[in-house]
């Protein structure tokens, strides 16, 4: 039986094509799509990620900070920190304006933290989509 042939790997698009949409997409959720003239999609993505982040703040969710310790502590805190910071300007503005909610017990606080992290993780998906559109892999 013939071995399955792998499809040829697509070459990476040049950095000057995708850097601006991806960077703007990190700073402003949906910004990369605006730059690429996908305004309808950009508005939907911007509204969804921003609403999720703002709801997380309103529920007084805690922001993760990188911590050392056992492997689980490192994974959770570094992962959460990456998720938080992926929201771009939303995260930067919030921390610059002095938001520092301590991690407190309670379902609402816990939901808030998850909303904040998920907003960032969804923004990473949005940045990947902007990269694919800029590179011509998607319309």
């Amino acid at each position, binding site marked *: 039986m013939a071995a399955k042939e792998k499809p040829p790997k697509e070459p990476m698009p040049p950095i000057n094509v995708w850097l601006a949409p991806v960077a703007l997409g990190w700073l402003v959720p949906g910004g990369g799509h605006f730059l690429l003239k996908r305004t309808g999609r950009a508005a939907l*993505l911007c509204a969804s990620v921003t609403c*999720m982040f703002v709801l997380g703040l*309103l529920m007084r969710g805690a922001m993760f900070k990188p911590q050392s310790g056992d492997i689980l502590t490192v994974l959770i805190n570094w992962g959460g920190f990456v998720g938080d910071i992926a929201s771009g300007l939303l995260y930067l503005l919030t921390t610059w304006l002095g938001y520092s909610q301590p991690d407190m017990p309670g379902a609402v606080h816990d939901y808030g933290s998850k*909303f904040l992290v998920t907003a960032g993780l*969804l923004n990473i*998906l949005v940045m990947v*989509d902007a990269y694919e559109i800029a590179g011509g892999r998607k319309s």
Partner: protein
Amino acid sequence: MPKMNLSHFEASFLFAVFSSVVLGVVSKRTDKERLHYGLYVFGCFVAALFGIGWLMYFGHG
């Protein structure tokens, strides 16, 4: 800044709405496919919400 107090259902429902919109928009290639996929993901979130909710209810006895 006022603190928002949402129930488990309200928080999970809002989570499902916003996640479904993003997953629908970034996943497919045509607007029709995006709409269908977004609705499908939202349906899965809501089904999981009710399913796991009932599971916990019976699990607690």
